[in-house]
């Protein structure tokens, strides 16, 4: 029995865009970046029990119990998916997230395993709960029925190398987001520098665990010919031939701070794809 808990935002049983094959994706709550372009902003924060959502919920599906620590009781059967709770949350959390034990997660995976190539842990930022991730992957590798599944992580790459080292024995692959190579651009998008991220990419590549680098494309931020040129050049030094996923920025789901951001057109995306292709990244896809 494994009682280690993770704060789970939600689980999607079937995803075709989170690693190779069909994958079950576990989204963990909480992120250490605050990207203005985040399309799932309500995975960023962790609940501070302010209770605003309980007042707003039309069906009283959310209750907060005081205690040490306090806890949220969310009744799924009452939820209308109106997302009002998300709208009022001042810390970009989600009252529907809940603590889940490894055993429960394993049971859910077992139920869908027939259809899966593997599982992916995403976020939020999954490495903030790296204990849970590691224990979960160990449990999968130790389970006769599940051991054929591959274990992937979708990460912003900010975890320090020692954390990655602790995960390596049970990790099959990682998808790492790089919002921009240019430090200035990176800082204005995410509020952080990208040094650790580039180290992570380089390290995971050396260890043979880097499955994909994900590049978000936002016109006027990181899409200039010069920036793309530098990115191709840099990545071909630290992770040559890695699969590249080019993600056109989309307004869907993002916060109002990002209203000024433009969506790239198809032509721009294709041009960037060709550039990566010519730079030795033969497996470059646009989604």
């Amino acid at each position: 029995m494994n009682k280690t808990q993770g704060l789970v935002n939600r689980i999607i049983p079937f995803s075709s865009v989170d690693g190779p094959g069909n994958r079950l994706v576990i989204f963990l709550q909480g992120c250490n970046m605050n990207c203005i372009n985040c399309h799932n902003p309500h995975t960023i924060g962790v609940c501070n029990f302010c209770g605003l959502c309980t007042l707003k919920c039309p069906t009283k599906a959310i209750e907060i119990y005081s205690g040490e620590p306090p806890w949220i009781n969310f009744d799924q059967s009452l939820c209308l998916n109106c997302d009002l709770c998300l709208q009022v949350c001042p810390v970009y959390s989600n009252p529907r997230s809940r603590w889940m034990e490894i055993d429960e997660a394993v049971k859910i995976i077992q139920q869908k395993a027939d259809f899966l190539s593997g599982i992916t842990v995403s976020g939020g930022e999954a490495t903030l709960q790296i204990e849970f991730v590691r224990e979960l992957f160990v449990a999968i590798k130790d389970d006769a029925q599940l051991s054929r599944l591959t274990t992937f992580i979708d990460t912003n790459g900010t975890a320090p190398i020692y954390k990655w080292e602790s995960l390596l024995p049970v990790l099959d692959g990682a998808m790492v987001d790089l919002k921009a190579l240019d430090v200035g651009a990176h800082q204005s998008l995410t509020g952080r520098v990208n040094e650790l991220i580039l180290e992570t990419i380089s390290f995971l590549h050396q260890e043979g665990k880097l499955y994909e680098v994900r590049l978000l494309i936002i016109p006027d931020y990181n899409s200039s010919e010069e920036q793309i040129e530098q990115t191709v050049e840099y990545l071909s030094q630290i992770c040559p031939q890695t699969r590249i996923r080019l993600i056109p920025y989309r307004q869907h789901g993002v916060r109002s701070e990002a209203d000024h951001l433009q969506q790239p057109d198809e032509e721009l995306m294709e041009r960037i794809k060709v550039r990566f292709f010519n730079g030795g990244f033969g497996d470059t896809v646009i989604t």
Partner: protein
Amino acid sequence: MSLKEFRYRAEQIVVDPGLTYQQRRHNMALLAEELIEYPPLGEEAKQALDDRIICDLFEGHAPYRARYILPDYEKAFQQGSEFLELEPPTNLAEALNFLTILYSQVPSITGFPVYLGDVDRLLTPYITEISDQDLYQQLKLFWRAADRMLPDGFVHANLGPEDTKIGRMILRIERELKQVVPNLTLKYDPTVTTDELLLEAVQTVFAVGKPHFANHPMMVGDLGERYAVVSCYNSLKIGGGSHTLTRLNLKDTVVRHSGDTGEYLQRTLPHYVELTLQVMEARIKYLVEEARFFEHDFLAQEGLIELEKFSAMFGIFGLAEAVNLLLEREGRRVKYGQNEEANQLSYQITDRIAQILAERSLPYCQGNGGRAFFHSQSGIDLDIEVTAGTRIPYGEEPDLYEHISAVAPHHCKFQAGISDIFHFERPVVNNPQAIIDVIKGAFRQGMREFTFNLADGEFVRITGYLVRRSDLVKYEENKRSRYDSTVLGSNAVKNQGIFQRKRRVINNEQNPGVS
């Protein structure tokens, strides 16, 4: 029909600018057949047929050919054909020529053969001394001829389960030619079919919406090694087929039922099943004893089909509406596909029908031990507000996993075919392995067969056949199409909300409407 009405309708056909010459001639033949009296039926069966609770799918009044015929092409290759004055082929060119000729002589309801053979197995013996380039060239011409000479979406070829050079080449040719014909099924056996072939097949799905995937071990268990999938997912015996496909509208049986669900299962449902079987019996007897098809047709005379391998297909449709209506009457507003209680009732209904079919003998159905084949009928263009077979209605499909769990328990009961369609969004083309995972998972869950449909693709899966979106547009403009199935597809799009099918993604972003 009065002579006056006959003249009027004949003239309408002859002058219809929307019909090609062949289509006019075919429709004239159907009209003439309507002049013959329907095979004798009891009052109740006749009434149910007139009310369209029972539907014979416009097979015509006087069955003079079996509905689905699966010639034993392998046997024809071995013995040649006396009637067609053909020697057994000795090389690939002869084999392809032999098949092309034989196809033109296979009777059916549409006038075009519903089965073109398990082409990889058939042709593999003839390719030992031929270069890949030659093979490709010859197969491509053959494939093009099939589409141009047999312009009908129900024409169907099979591949697999073995991974062969021909199988792969045909999939490649499919991707290049982008033809509607032939419809295609890949037989999948987890112990035989390679992942490489499966990947080729999935890439072909992305390009042309086919092949359809069939659970080979399950089919072999029900029908024996020598079976094929033909027309709209009808699985039948090679060298045999089905005399008729008569279908029962389950929704209508509930509309006419008064009483609770228990009484429906005990009384009303068995009553209509029996009436349907009476219609089938009358049609089979006419075909075999009056038209004496199996005595006169050269395919039977030369042993390329055998009466002993035939049975008849009992089809159902509108299961979803039947279930929902029955439960609604009991004050339960739940839906098939979305609710466990509704799903359980649906299994009870198909169990009950399967049980009746197993107990009721039908003449000339030795191909299935003297019993009818059970079939989940995938709909026709005229169906309105009634869902095909045992499918979940368009737009009400739950998540893929729940979808498969809901429909899978039906699949083992339908020896003669059942189809479900899974819809995906475009981005999945970057990850064909995801589709392979779904295929393998679905078969592990006991699915017999299924098809994929890609949102906004050029190829649209209608009931079981395909139409090209561009052909639908052209047909809307000038009311004419080379493929006779485009016309049916156009009606189906209007009547059944084909484009409302639930699309399946992927990363399901939450949409809190943050402003």
